[in-house]
């Protein structure tokens, strides 16, 4: 296991900046997830780490040593590909041991390693088969086996679950997490699925347009998004983002939310940090997670405010019910109890938990801190 440092990684294709200087430092044993929409450069970054693509600028260091000029095979990295990339002409056992064979590991040693990995992944009974005879989940296991068997310094996963059906994806997600806990391996994992990112990562790097938007633990990225993009991208349902105005009133700041012709919604805020107070009298974007809105209990306390809103749609998911509410002329999603009694079109009272309320600057789109 090794640490990984990405220092100011840049990539240009002609006039196109794919990566605009990425700095990430990964501790040994960390599970870093690169997440972002298609075309954000996350796969390019992974390929640069692997050595399958060359950076226009910057440096990749593994265990403190620069590997920028090393061939992929000399970096001691294993990669699991989106399509699994199993060699169709070889049996599962040959697939797993091909890397060792190329490194001239003696046959007895290879066979031992195959057995060990096959046992770990429970694919012993598949060793003689060809990839074409395997199901998607089995192929996924073999692809992981091929990576594991080499005991590399770093594992790279390139959207490994995106070709599996929903149920299998959940199972494999859990398995990957278990595997990480057991092996304490350093992993860099690329996905566009923010739920995968949340569940697997010890740290998440959110990317867009070749720039790092935020690097932090899942909890940080979720609760304290660095900007509007991260707030809108991470979490399902996405964070409610509502334009409003901060108004200085007697006791402190009040958040006013208003859509053109609808009645104004005013929420008195608890004491705010100085950075937020500086925005008094200015437009901001307020961000509130769905679980911070609950069905009204009628009790106003330090961090809770009760507002009145109309239910637009309810979406029961079983564990809870997502309701799209009309509050101050804006749609907001609330995560409510499954026995939530109101139906579409009905009006009700809702509690807003202000402890998790965040503000963004509408121009810079950054969170106000």
């Amino acid at each position, binding site marked *: 296991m090794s640490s990984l440092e990405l220092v100011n990684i840049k990539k240009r294709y002609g006039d196109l900046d794919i990566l605009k200087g990425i700095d990430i430092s990964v501790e040994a044993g960390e599970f870093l997830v690169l997440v972002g929409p298609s075309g954000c450069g996350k796969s390019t970054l992974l*390929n640069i780490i*692997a050595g*399958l693509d060359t950076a226009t600028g910057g440096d990749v260091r593994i265990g403190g040593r620069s590997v920028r000029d090393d*061939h*992929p*095979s000399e970096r001691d*990295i*294993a*990669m699991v*590909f*989106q*399509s699994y*990339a*199993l*060699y*169709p*002409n*070889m049996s599962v056992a040959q697939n797993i041991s*091909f*890397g060792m064979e*190329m*490194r001239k590991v003696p046959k007895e040693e290879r066979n031992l390693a195959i057995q060990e990995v096959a046992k770990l992944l429970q694919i012993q009974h598949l060793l003689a088969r060809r990839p074409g005879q395997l199901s998607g989940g089995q192929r996924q296991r073999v692809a992981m086996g*091929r990576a594991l068997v080499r005991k590399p310094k770093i594992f790279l996963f390139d959207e490994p679950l995106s070709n599996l059906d929903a149920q299998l994806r959940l199972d494999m997600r859990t398995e990957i997490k278990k595997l990480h806990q057991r092996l304490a391996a350093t992993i860099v994992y690329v996905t566009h699925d923010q739920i995968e990112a949340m569940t697997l990562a010890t740290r998440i790097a959110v990317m867009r347009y070749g720039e790092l938007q935020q690097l932090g633990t899942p909890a940080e990225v979720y609760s304290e998004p660095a900007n509007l993009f991260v707030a809108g991208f991470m979490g399902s349902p996405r964070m409610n983002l509502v334009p409003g105005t901060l108004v200085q009133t007697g006791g402190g700041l009040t958040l006013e939310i208003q859509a053109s012709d609808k009645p104004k919604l005013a929420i008195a805020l608890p004491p705010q940090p100085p950075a937020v107070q500086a925005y008094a009298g200015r437009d901001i974007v307020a961000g509130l997670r769905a679980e911070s809105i609950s069905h009204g209990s009628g009790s106003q306390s330090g961090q809770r405010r009760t507002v009145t809103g109309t239910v637009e749609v309810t979406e029961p998911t079983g564990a809870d019910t997502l309701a799209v509410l009309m509050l101050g002329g804006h749609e907001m999603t609330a995560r409510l109890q499954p026995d939530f009694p109101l139906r579409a079109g009905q009006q009700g009272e809702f509690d807003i938990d202000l402890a998790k309320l965040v503000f963004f600057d509408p121009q810079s789109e950054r969170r106000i801190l």
Partner: protein
Amino acid sequence: MAEATWETPKMARGRGNRWSRVVIYGLLAFFALVYLLPLVVMLLTSLKPLPEIYAGNMIALPQEWTIEPWRKAWEEVCVGLACHGIKGYFWNSIKMAFFGVTISTAVGALNGYVLTKWRFRGDSLLFGLILFGCFIPFQIVLIPMATILGKLGLASSTTGLVLVHVTYGIAFTTLFFRNYYAVFPDELVKAAMMDGARFWAIFFRILLPSSGPIIAVSMIWQFTNIWNDFLFGASFSTGESAPMTVALNNVVNTSTAEREYNVHMAAAIIAALPTLMVYVFGGRYFVRGLMAGSVKG
């Protein structure tokens, strides 16, 4: 799967169906017969003694069956002035086809591999230029080719003919392999690279073992072209070094007292046999290989 797709829908089966089938199969059988007739006549003629042939009745079965014309064609018939039969020329053709097919297929596979998996600046242009080779008419290159073969000291040799056929074949084999490898997943190559395989290991261990269908296409295509070639054979070889096609022509044109049609027919069948075999046994691989790229994509 193909059968299921093309099965006649039940709705279309009308009352007149049976009769239309009779007509269709009747016509098909008739045309099959028309196409088969020359071969049948050749075969029958080659199995008859000469007097029977001169008596007429081309289509009649031999009254006296004999394989003597075949033996004579193989061992004794005169090709020009030399009367050793066609066997030497047959082996010339076998040698020429074997090396021509193997080398051009190998080079084509390598070209296709480099042009798709080791892309470089100008690779598309280079491929375009190679492709151009498919359209060069044979006649245009005869004289320059003769000059080059002369300078290389390969004039009138089987080696020279192999060189000519390889040069011409590379354009086609490159096209075949490039298109086949273009749809071969890049991730496999990347995975092999991560596994520590380099240029040749990736080619021999990953790509080539998956290239069965296109190798079949390339080999069948090249074999038929090289075996059937007459122009290059007639232009760049003389006497003993001539390939089968040229020898056959010389057999038929060598005028002795009487024309031994039965021997000529036997020689012609021997000359045609290898390509016939290739189509009978390799035909389906040919179609399958040509389809492989398009369906996978």
